[in-house]
């Protein structure tokens, strides 16, 4: 069944710079696989891309219902892009629920591909619909392509030995084939993937490959499209080796890389929680790096085990989300007091409390910086996108080890599950910061709380003769570390701990801005909003606005030079997926500057156009 003539070769082929497709169907429809395959192929073709899955709430809802809808959006482009896209150009809807849940986001005039095979009475009922949205005007203003995918797959696979139920499970590859045709994508990467994936069940390989080809070759449908499109490879990406990566994957790699760069073995103590669990899952694979992963009985045990591991000379880490951080608070204070390296990752989700575990938010910043009893300063850094998460993982290890400190790494649900091309680092250019263990007494006695020029104490691990010492959470005497209730000593230690953390600033580069060096407005973001801010600000700039943008990786301590930087703009706009948390920090640090908070708390990322519009509104005032 090799393909001879490209189907629909007679149809016009149009070049497009960028396209956003959203696949949507029931949780059981395999939309995540479809999206991932489309993504791999886009990467293979050389597009720049960004993706975002939209999972349903944690439990699988009954099939066909609205809460059961699973979505996957991909933005692929021949130019440099920063986000998974605002409004999709194309929506693929596998059932009525998927259609009604997603149609509101589709671009005016966009294409919607509908699997009519799933629009029976019962299907409508499951989606709580009385009339079919195909008939009630819902789809007015869109280009609708109706295909009975159920039937077509069944037809294509009449010869398959699979059961009818199994055959229906190939629907997503039929759909994928169809979209490959529309966007002139090669089939090989997916054919190969199927062959490897189901190597043990040739019948499955065959059926899915057949479905894929059938979708690609479905001549009659092609006529419904007014043409085919081509999104050529992206030439704007800097030269290098690339790989598509999810934020959680990149962060896990950064964590293992950071440990390696420090010359340490990683110990991860973790308790599963959405959306951080994948960090545990992935690090659990790295046994041959000597990495130990420990699924503890709860978040408290997880961080305590990690801190114990750090005392023993491992690089202790713990990964969680907001409610888990809450539980780790007490132990974090101890980590501050005993001054041991510890990497704490918070993949933020929407709160308060259990909130909306599968939705994104940046509402844990103030908790990270100030949410502990006593004066317990710790550094805080945040990843700005999937690829950046790798660097942030490494940077967290650097700071933890070089400054003997716990550090909070903020990611979020959007970064964690979104993907984009990652320019792979050159191995010899990764930062080096080898951990230095004290191995013998220097001078009279070992002083576990003596400090170097950065205010950092030595690290001596059990098993080292002569350096036996005890640590704990009671206040310690400067130098010896003995328990000490002396008033002046306590004040001194409080300042020493604070200064040590502030000294980290010396190792942080100043911010660089995109856009004018001075002007009306600076847009300052942090964390996962970088893509939208970058695109939105660039568009405003293209329209003539005097606006620059920059992004914080280091939230505490802040990078040097901010006062001077802020002074160059009339106002600083701070978009955040919270009620203005960074804005508060900035106001208290730099009351002399004019910060404007732009808050969004919908469990959703910013859209680029929202940033663009806000900039314009502000500048018009």
């Amino acid at each position, binding site marked *: 069944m090799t393909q001879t003539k490209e189907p629909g070769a007679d149809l016009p082929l149009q070049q497009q710079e960028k396209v956003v497709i959203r696949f949507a169907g029931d949780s059981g429809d395999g939309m995540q696989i479809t999206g991932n395959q489309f993504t*791999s192929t886009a*990467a*293979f073709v*050389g597009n720049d891309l960004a993706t975002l899955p939209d999972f349903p709430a944690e439990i699988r809802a009954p099939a066909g219902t609205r809460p059961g809808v699973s979505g996957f959006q991909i933005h692929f482009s021949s130019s440099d892009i920063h986000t998974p896209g605002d409004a999709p150009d194309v929506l693929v809807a596998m059932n009525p629920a998927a259609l009604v849940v997603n149609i509101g986001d589709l671009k005016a005039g966009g294409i919607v591909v509908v699997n009519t095979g799933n629009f029976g009475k019962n299907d409508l009922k499951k989606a709580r619909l009385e009339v079919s949205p195909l008939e009630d005007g819902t789809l007015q203003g869109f280009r609708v392509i109706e295909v009975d995918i159920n039937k077509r797959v069944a037809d294509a696979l009449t010869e398959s030995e699979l059961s009818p139920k199994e055959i229906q499970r190939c629907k997503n590859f039929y759909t994928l084939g169809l979209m490959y045709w529309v966007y002139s994508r090669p089939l090989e990467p997916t054919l190969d993937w199927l062959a490897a994936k189901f190597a043990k069940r040739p019948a499955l390989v065959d059926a899915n490959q057949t479905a894929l080809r059938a979708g690609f070759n479905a001549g009659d449908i092609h006529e419904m499209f007014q043409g085919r499109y081509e999104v050529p490879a992206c*030439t704007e*990406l800097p*030269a290098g*080796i*690339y*790989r*598509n990566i999810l934020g959680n994957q990149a962060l896990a*790699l950064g964590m*293992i890389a950071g440990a*390696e760069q420090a010359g340490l*073995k990683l*110990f991860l*103590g973790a308790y599963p929680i959405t959306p951080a669990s994948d960090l545990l899952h992935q690090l659990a694979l790295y*046994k*041959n*790096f*000597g990495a*130990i992963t*420990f699924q*503890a*009985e*709860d978040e*408290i*045990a*997880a961080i*305590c*085990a*990690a*801190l*114990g*591991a*750090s*005392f*023993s000379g*491992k690089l202790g880490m713990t990964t969680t989300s907001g409610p888990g951080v809450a539980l780790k608070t007490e*132990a974090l204070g*101890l980590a501050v007091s*005993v001054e041991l390296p510890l990497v704490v990752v918070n993949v933020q989700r929407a709160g308060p409390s259990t909130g909306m575990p599968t939705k994104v938010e940046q509402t844990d910043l103030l908790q990270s910086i100030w949410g502990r009893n006593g004066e317990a300063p710790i550094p805080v850094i945040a990843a700005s996108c999937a690829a950046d998460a790798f660097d942030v993982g490494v940077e967290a290890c650097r700071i933890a080890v070089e400054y003997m400190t716990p550090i909070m790494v903020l990611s979020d649900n959007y970064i964690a599950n979104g993907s984009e091309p990652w*320019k*792979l*680092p050159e*191995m010899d250019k990764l930062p080096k910061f080898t951990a230095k263990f004290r191995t013998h007494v220097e001078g009279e006695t070992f002083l576990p709380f003596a400090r170097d020029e950065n205010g950092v104490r030595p690290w001596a*691990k*059990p*098993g*080292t003769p002569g*350096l*036996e*010492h*005890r*640590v*704990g*959470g*009671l206040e310690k005497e400067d130098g010896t570390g*003995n*328990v000490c209730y002396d008033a002046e000593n306590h004040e001194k230690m409080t300042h020493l701990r604070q200064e040590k953390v502030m000294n980290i600033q010396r190792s942080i580069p100043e911010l660089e801005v995109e856009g004018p060096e001075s002007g009306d407005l600076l847009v300052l973001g942090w964390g996962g909003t970088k893509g939208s801010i970058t695109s939105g600000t660039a568009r405003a700039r293209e329209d003539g606005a005097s606006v620059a943008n920059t992004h914080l990786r280091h939230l505490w301590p802040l990078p040097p030079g901010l006062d001077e930087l802020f002074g160059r703009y009339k106002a600083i706009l701070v978009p955040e997926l919270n009620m203005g948390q960074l804005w508060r920090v900035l106001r208290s640090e730099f009351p002399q500057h004019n910060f404007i908070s732009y808050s969004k708390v919908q469990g959703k990322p910013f859209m680029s156009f929202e940033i663009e519009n806000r900039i314009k509104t502000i500048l018009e005032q």
Partner: protein
Amino acid sequence: MAAEAVLKKKDLKSDQEVRWCPGCGDYAILNCVQGVMADLGVKRENMMFVSGIGCSSRFPYYMNTYGFHSIHGRAPAFATGIKVSNPELSVWLVTGDGDGLSIGGNHMIHVLRRNLDINILLFNNEIYGLTKGQYSPTSRLGLKTKATPFGSLDYPFNPISLALGAGATFVARTVDTNLKHMAGILEAAAAHKGTSFIEIFQNCVIFNDKVFDSVSDKKVRDERMVDLVPGEKIVYGNDHEKGLRLDGYHLEQCSADEAGVWDPSTPTAGPSMLFADIDRDATLPTPIGIFRQVERPRFEEGVHAQIDHVTETKGPGKLEDLIYTADTWKVD
């Protein structure tokens, strides 16, 4: 594993002033532990004491070894991280009835089921000492404390039963007033490969004085306590004249001759539970000694075996390979 230079008890005393109330049972335990540790054949730098918060939990400060005085109730988690990270260490966990069974109860039962090779000393004084005398989860019903001016209503845990229920592989009990017995138990615990759980009846002179006296006072203890010694007959009494044996599902007193032979390693913990559940107020004597002792894989052993196995099959990890996978593409 013998230490190069022979350790003396005094080598294990730290330079910190010991600060328990005069007369506190903790002193005796410290003394006994220092003696036993010196003779274990473990190097001092490989000794690690971990604790939570409480009077008892100040223990690590007084041991001239590595030590971690952590936070309230969490010592088992710290010990887990430490032992898994470095299985060479001889890890001792010191905790109290409040620290280990109230706030820390969950970590306690989890470390017991995981069976790391560590030794847990639970100083049970049936009271919160450090916070000045509130009732604890082992306090007797009706105990009047500051927090229970009209008497406690909380039915207490039996630490031995709880440990058995959690699947502990070594469970024992000893008394702060019987240092010879304590030393024997500590040695057995050190020898046990797996988590050893030792409940120590410890007198708090200030807030719960003499609470164990009805069974542990030197004058009555031979009659009111029975020592469970693996492989030996279960006998007690001033002249070792009495014994215990099983009658159907119950224990009963008998003569020394008729006494059963103690086996702490039955397949189920049922028999151990029969003895554990004997209350201090019961007519039968309160058991001390070894309630349970069975072999089971240790957690840290499994962790390292898995690491070794994966490393052997996959080869040692190379960071570059992890980053530069098959799915890459090049942009020029």
